[in-house]
């Protein structure tokens, strides 16, 4: 058990390090930029923007550090950027091995296909946890460094609640990975799909008749800005994400089980 996860994790260490450092540097830039701003002026600009746009970028109390981080980092980078990243990374997991003929050898192991899939998926927990822990810590440190304060519990909660969301994105990528024969196809489909889902949720939010469509998007169930501002969130949303994640993972196992390699 978990031999494959161990091996795959060892292969993800380098990429995870680069990604974590990169995201941390971006956070540093955003926090430093906040220290240069005149918050009230920015608040005025935000008020002049259309509500749909404010919604899409999670802009709320943009003049406070919580609102600023929620809009600039958590809604944009975390929700959209990392959502796409995890869907993209997991899209290569199965399709890449099939395309490069590695799957032939892996399936000669005395290991079931569903176990192999879950073990490979589990290796994505390395970047998932590393990013949340390191970037969360870095953000907190930097906020204190520019003389602002943020509730550490709210910050931790924003990270914690992002995990089910990112798992759903990764599971979407895994389903695509199992369906495709080439990793490039699965990867492009994953990027496109997450982006479209995010767009649908942002654009449709304003139109009441079509509001139900936004329920299809995982982005609908994770709203980091309110969590950062006052720690408010819907537990049922998190439950829906966890259920969707498990459902998609089981679906990918079944599809993988049935397909010819």
């Amino acid at each position: 058990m978990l031999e494959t996860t161990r091996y795959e994790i060892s292969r993800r260490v380098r990429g995870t390090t680069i990604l974590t450092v990169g995201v941390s540097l971006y956070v540093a830039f955003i926090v430093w930029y906040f220290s240069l701003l005149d918050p009230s002026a920015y608040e005025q600009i935000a008020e002049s923007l259309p509500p749909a746009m404010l919604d899409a970028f999670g802009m709320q109390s943009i003049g406070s550090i919580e609102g600023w981080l929620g809009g600039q980092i958590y809604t944009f980078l975390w929700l959209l950027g990392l959502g796409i990243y995890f869907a993209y990374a997991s899209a290569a997991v199965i399709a890449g091995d099939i395309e490069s003929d590695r799957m032939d050898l892996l399936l000669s192991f005395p290991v079931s296909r569903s176990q192999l899939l879950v073990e490979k998926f589990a290796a994505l927990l390395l970047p998932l946890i590393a990013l949340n822990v390191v970037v969360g810590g870095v953000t907190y440190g930097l906020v204190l460094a520019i003389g602002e304060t943020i509730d550490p519990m709210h910050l931790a909660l924003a990270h914690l609640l992002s995990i089910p969301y990112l798992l759903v994105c990764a599971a979407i990528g895994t389903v695509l990975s199992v369906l495709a024969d080439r990793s490039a196809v699965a990867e492009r489909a994953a990027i496109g799909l997450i982006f479209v889902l995010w767009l649908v949720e942002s654009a449709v939010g304003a139109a009441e008749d079509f509001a139900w469509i936004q329920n299809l998007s995982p982005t609908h169930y994770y709203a980091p800005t309110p969590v950062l501002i006052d720690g408010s969130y819907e537990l049922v949303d998190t439950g829906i994400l966890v259920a969707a994640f498990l459902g998609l993972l089981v679906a990918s196992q079944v599809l993988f089980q049935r397909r010819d390699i």
Partner: protein
Amino acid sequence: MSSITVDNLSKRYDDVVAVDSLSFSVERGEIFGFLGPNGAGKTTTIRTLLGLIAPSAGTATVLGADVHDEDALIEAKRRIGYLPANLGFNDEATGAEVLDYHESVKGGSRRDELLEIFTPPVERPIREYSTGNKRMLGIVQAFMHDPELVIMDEPTSGLDPLKQEEFNEFARNERDRGKTLFFSSHVLSEVRRVCDRVGVLREGVLVGLEDVDTLLRQGGKRVHIQTTDEARTDLTEIDGVIDVQTFAEGIQFIYTGEYNTLLRELATHDVREIEISEPPLEDIFMRYYGSDGGVEPNQEVQSDA
């Protein structure tokens, strides 16, 4: 008990039939060569045996496990080694890292011993490997857990002749230790050196199941001679000369008769250049099994294993 039984196995892709009602069995402790030109369905059969693809009809068992039964097949895979035709490894990993991974999953009691015979540079990343080195790494992983049955798809492709010979000797030793080896090849000369029996596959149909000696007797030799006009006519009249092709400077034919007769005839003519070689496998199939699959499939022959 047979190590592999294939029973009316078929695999269709849309309108293409890759394997058509294939039946044969591989006995414990023999080296079985699965011979056929490229595209004959060898790889499809092998990948079905490992459960990578599901048969469209019929079935097969490996070490008693039905390929439709995933649990039984997983249990059997502990005692099976597999060397695919196209070896995929993570390019940035070193050979040692890959072997560590394989060892952690399936065991590696013979790893060190194998690395003395087959010598891929295990400390280097696989992206720097030549085809031969990759093949050797593949051979090591296929045998490292000391499996009862090893299934190999074109095992010596990419190996230099010296390593090929070492592999052949290694294969015979494994057979003598009681292991069963099943391997596919499109090279007759390779199969004749190591195999006890061969199954010949053409266009997805098993056209012959022979012991190796029979196949070779039927194979004949390809003779290519540069000589004069009248010699060409004389030569075509010898018994056992078939598939004659003449051209400006000489003649080429397949000779299946007695060597001395041919040599005596040649001695009476002016031979400027001669080349005697093994005919391409495709030619043997065409001649002995005809274009419609000819010989009774699955004819049983005595194995000398």
